[in-house]
């Protein structure tokens, strides 16, 4: 079992486009402080930022749990919101339910979840319609890709 070294929880509010990205920024700073490889920091930053944007666009609120273990960096996002009806479909590149307004924000082109998956060594997505979505992403510390 990997040993948990550092764990932090952050709250992200739905609709708060202005603050989106602050959690990712803090996580990047923490990882830099403990001397993690910059490539891994970048991957963790992209994962968290895309996840944050998803919360801001679709959910009411979410808790982001960042965990650093002796084996990996993991980002877990529990959101409270409408959920995703067809998870497989949502994972397809280009598929999106975004509104024009979201697209004007520069997001909602159906690339967020695929981006998260691409930057993760382990990726899980579970959703319950009407309740919310749980996203899990882990990046291995020994994996330089």
């Amino acid at each position, binding site marked *: 079992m990997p*040993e948990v*070294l*550092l764990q932090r929880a952050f709250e992200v509010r739905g609709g708060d486009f202005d603050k989106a990205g602050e959690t990712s920024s803090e996580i990047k700073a*923490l990882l830099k*402080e*403990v*001397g993690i*490889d*910059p*490539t891994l920091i*970048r991957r963790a930053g992209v994962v968290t930022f895309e996840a944050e944007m998803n919360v801001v666009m679709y959910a009411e609120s979410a808790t982001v749990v960042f965990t*650093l273990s*002796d084996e990996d960096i993991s980002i877990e996002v529990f959101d409270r919101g409408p959920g995703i009806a067809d998870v497989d479909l949502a994972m397809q590149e280009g598929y999106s339910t975004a509104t024009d307004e979201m697209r004007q924000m520069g997001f909602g082109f159906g690339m967020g979840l695929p981006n998260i998956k691409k930057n993760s060594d382990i990726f899980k997505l579970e959703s319950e319609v009407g309740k919310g979505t749980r996203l899990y992403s882990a990046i291995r*510390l020994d994996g330089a890709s």
Partner: protein
Amino acid sequence: MMTHGFRIDQDKCRGCLSCMRACPTHAIRVRDGKARYIPEKCIDCGSCLKSCPYGAITATTWSFQDMDKFKFKVAVPSPVLFGQFPAGVTPAHIVQGLLSVGFDAVWDYGVELFLASRAVLHYVENWKGPFPLISVSCPVVVRLVQVSYPRMIDQLIRLQIPREIAGREIKRRYAKELGLRPDEIAAVYITPCQAKTISILHPAEGVESHLNGALGISEVYNPILASANQQRNGLPPPAEIPNIVRNSTFLGWSVREGLGRSLARHNSLHVTGLANIIQVFDDIEKGKLQNVEFLEAHSCWSGCTGGNLTVANVYVTLSKLRSLVGDLPEMDAETLAEVNSRYPLEDFSLEAPVLPRPIKGQSGDLREKVRLLQEAEAVLKTLPGYNCGLCGAPTCKEMAKDISAGEASKADCVFFSKDRLSELYKRFLLNDR
């Protein structure tokens, strides 16, 4: 053994915190009313020396007495020396002055500058690793990488710098000419800063320098000026023009952008000033500057002309050097011939790699780093956050790190300990002012 370039005179130090606040790497603490160094954090930049109002900080240099044990002494002056003197004092006077203070010969390393440039060009063009490559000419920059950017250590160019190549050639040539053993010959660098002295006495790569020691420009200045004045009063100026003015490269080195110039076809960047260097290194670490192939960085704002052992004003120095260089060509036939004959025969690679220098809390395993980070964060929340420095650490954040590492206690903070406050008050009463 961890060695750095400064001493604090404990009698003169009043614990005023100036040096602690000036230190860019947070390497100074004031404990029991006296400043002291955390040696592994010191990068020899000299900010503390400049900041001390009581003259309590001195740089480790060499002295004339240190030269006495050698049979043949060769001065290797930095080009900066030639820009230090008032109008009318020529390079020939200065060379003569160096001879009059006890040197047997003066060596200009113009040829070695070309040799090193050529070697660097070859190195950059054949490099397969990550860019940018970083020049090792400023010892402060080398130490900064060792201490704060260990990931970039392979980007330091593993080549000898010109003054070291000169030291090696001096030993070889004079040993042969005079029938002496190399250890009977002293190659002494005339240095604009104490960082270079340390790089000679304790090189970053841990092997021995080809130079034996260094004298600060400020130390040789007065004797040279006296000799120059004597030469100018009555005695005709020396007939022989010293080699340093054969071409513009040696004296122009500090005026131009050093090595970057010979790498004109490559993307190079010249950064000066420690604060700027730190920002640029942060960007390099993030991979933002991969298109820069060569980075020359000098800790002093004005390059070596602003070294802390210089005497003259930086701008006056630059202007004097420019006027000395005049319209001379960058290269002359004699120098070119020597460069061409030596280049294929000499090995310019560094004899040992420069290794990272571990700092407590920033090295070791991830578990330990996280533990220190968390403890320091927890402690920081309880500190006042005014960064007053009265505890002896430069900021509350640094203090929190010290406490979590067991090197200070919360009782050192005046907000938590009346004893600490009264101790400071007593010290204030004792200081006559």
